[in-house]
């Protein structure tokens, strides 16, 4: 079972890197934000898997905090982009 989890992790890492390509290429800022959003989601997924791989239950708390708070950064960027600040 551990093998499957770790392979999934590697796939997720590759996907994160691919999303970073969009972050780099842009072309506009909203595109980059979309990429950031995708990276957020993927990172949370990989954190959840890692918690299982390492058999450390408490690690999921990190993922929850992460999912909650990356939203805030996103909202601030969106607020600035929409000239609403």
């Amino acid at each position: 079972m551990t093998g499957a989890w770790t392979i999934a992790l590697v796939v997720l890492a590759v996907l994160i890197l691919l999303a970073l390509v969009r972050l780099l290429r842009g072309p506009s800022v909203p595109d980059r934000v979309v990429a950031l959003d995708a990276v957020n989601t993927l990172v949370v997924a990989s954190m959840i898997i890692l918690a299982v791989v390492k058999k450390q239950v408490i690690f999921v708390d990190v993922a929850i905090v992460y999912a909650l708070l990356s939203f805030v950064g996103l909202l601030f960027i969106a607020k600035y982009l929409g000239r609403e600040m």
Partner: protein
Amino acid sequence: MRMTKVVRTVADLLYPFCMIFGLYVVAHGHLTPGGGFQGGAVIATATALLIAAHRYDDVSARVKSARMKVFESVGLLGFLILGFSAIILGQPAFRNWMLSRGSLFNDSVAFGVNPGALTTGGLMPLMNLAVGLEVLGALTIITLYMLSGTKEDPS
């Protein structure tokens, strides 16, 4: 300007959950990852979430920076007093004198791997709480003040 109704609603609904989660992180600082700093940061970021979703004026009318300053000072003073309270008992500062003393957080901890009990840790949970209060106040004030700095007309 505020964000749309959808974002505001989501932020409003998320806020209490963020807060209880932050308090959970603070309260379980001695058992699970986290503690005063992290929990305080979570709550402060939740306030930032409100600021992002609503107008600055709406939020700053409710989350008053004066009150946050009091939170911060009280948290720090509490930490200071907790830390140096051992001196009154004739022990060095920062001695965890409440550990197994027959008071609030006095349960003896099981050694090795265990599911963890909330009532252990002596002074530590209290210190966590104080630090959480401080960090919550501090980070909120930083956000509020910096936002107020953008509002002012530079001329």
